[in-house]
């Protein structure tokens, strides 16, 4: 079973809650996905009214909230937002997002490392959104990250695992769970990530903007399960070429 910090998860599919046509649609998709961890943007939640529409649709016993700091441009802003989120949503889990570039929403590695270090000292369980940078992943481990969330492709693009080679290195080297985040556009992408040995995937856009979000969420659930099962069963090796018909070393057998 997947374990992040001290928490165990039956589902290896995490969901984002943005971009849905309604909160009800979002709730149906989250339930269909079987996800136990959903990320919620602090900036979208109205913490003053205590009747926030988004949060009220996520009140299910098995669903854990993962507040994110989307909107923060640097470590200082992220650390401040994290503390507000902890207070308001009563969880020390945090998806750390620092993307100063509003165009492609690419994460800032320097600020992310800095913030992770500070937040770890403050007792947060941190899941940082990062580029698929194996060295950064090791640096984050060193300062106490609970997991790493490398991107498959720029967020919201549905392009799949464009960073494949680097994801493979990260998965090979990591001592913390690896959650492929961003860019996963179809269930086959998710299955592929799981076959590689990713511990989980996070999906948002592909489900939220589907014609039928709940149906798509179920498709992702099945794909993630299938991919994981294949990984655990042990995939066959892929031959680089067909077996040569005129082997070069055949003479040794004579």
């Amino acid at each position, binding site marked *: 079973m997947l374990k992040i910090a001290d928490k165990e998860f039956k589902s290896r599919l995490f969901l984002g809650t943005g971009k849905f046509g309604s909160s009800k649609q979002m709730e149906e998709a989250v339930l269909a996905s079987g996800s136990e961890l959903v990320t919620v943007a602090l*900036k979208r939640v109205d913490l003053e009214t205590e009747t926030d529409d988004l949060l009220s649709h996520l009140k299910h016993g098995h669903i854990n909230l993962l507040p994110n700091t989307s909107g923060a441009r640097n470590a200082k802003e992220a650390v401040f937002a994290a503390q507000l989120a902890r207070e308001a949503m009563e969880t020390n889990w945090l998806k750390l997002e620092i993307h100063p570039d*509003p165009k492609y929403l690419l994460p800032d590695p320097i600020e992310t490392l800095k913030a992770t270090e500070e937040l770890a000292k403050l007792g947060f369980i941190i899941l940082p959104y990062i580029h698929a940078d194996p060295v950064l992943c090791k640096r984050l481990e060193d300062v106490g990250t609970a997991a790493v969330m490398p991107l498959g492709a720029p967020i919201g693009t549905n392009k799949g695992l464009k960073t494949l080679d680097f994801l493979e290195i990260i998965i090979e080297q990591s001592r913390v769970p690896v959650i492929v985040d961003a860019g996963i556009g179809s269930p086959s992408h998710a299955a592929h990530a799981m076959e590689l040995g990713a511990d989980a995937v996070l999906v948002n856009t592909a489900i939220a903007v589907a014609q039928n979000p709940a149906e798509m969420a179920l498709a992702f659930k099945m794909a993630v399960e299938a991919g994981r099962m294949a990984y655990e069963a042990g995939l066959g090796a892929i031959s680089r070429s067909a077996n040569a018909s005129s082997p070069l070393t055949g003479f040794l057998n004579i």
Partner: protein
Amino acid sequence: MSFTTLFHNTNWDEIKSSIYSKTAEDVERALSSKKRTLEDFKALISPAAEPFIERMAQESHALTKKRFGKTIQLYTPMYLSNECNNICTYCGFSFDNKIRRKTLTDEEILQEVAYLKERGFNHILLVTGEANQTVHVPYFKRVMDLIRNEFANISIEVQPLDEDEYRELHEAGVYSVLVYQETYHKDVYKAYHPKGKKSNFEYRLDTPDRCGKAGIHKIGLGVLLGLEDWRTDSFFCALHLDYLQKKYWQTKYSISFPRMRPAEGIIEPNVIVGDRELVQLICAYRLFNEDVELSVSTRESEYFRNHVIPLGVTTMSAGSKTNPGGYVVEPESLEQFEISDERSVEEIAKLIKDQGYEAVWKDWDRSFISSSPFGGEQRIDDLTIETDKHV
């Protein structure tokens, strides 16, 4: 280098003739290319693109859904003052218009705020004319002190200011600044703005640069559709956007499409921009720039707003009044321009919902403007974060 340098190297007449000589082939190329350029934008706003409007709309819809999801953000303007020392021949607040001038007092502002909060608004746009003797930075800061904790997101559309003034206002909690060039045709600009500080074309043109340097989170651009050839003007606006986005890469941008509306004592539009053309323009912006916010206000008709939601728009105002105190304090004071879509925000929220979109009331948290003095210090005083400037 500021935008003015680039602007002076770009010739209006050459751009105009280049836009008008685009062919169906150019439009096809623009539609099928993966990363669209300013040349592609020219093709998409050209007369040659008119027969392609349905394809443009489909593509704009798909791109917007991918980037922003099925959401529309709601905001409303709050006019603080109609005092103005500028003569703008198309504006109800123009200095030479003999109307009663009004600037809201603290008490009046709070009354308006209470009403708008009751309606559910969390994003607000503060609007004034340009009266530097009375409606100045100290006034804006006082207003921010009054209302900062009432809204998640506060934008301003006021006279252009200096860089350090923007920095002060950003620290006071201002999230975004809207400043429309009105027209990028310098001579025409001079004719429409004969008197007042606004007649300084270059100072206005470099305003977004000053906002960018001051670390303002979002900058809103636009041209007043109706003053000059909308295609050429919109090209310059897109050029401006492209320049800013590369230079101030941490800043967000939005584009508005104000079409001239009737107002007290104003001139007729020089150019009529029809619904079909406005849709073409909205879609062209989306195809050119997948992440820019596109905003449509209550200047537009009910009919147009009913249909524009899935076409690429991300932001709408609702239930707006364009006069100071217009919501509660003094509903009869003179408005800047006539609102066209007079429906309440409840009706607009329902319209959005009925089209399968979520009306988003809050998409920002004031805690992100970290250097501002509203309670941040106490909460983070146990931290040892280096306070590098990242703006």
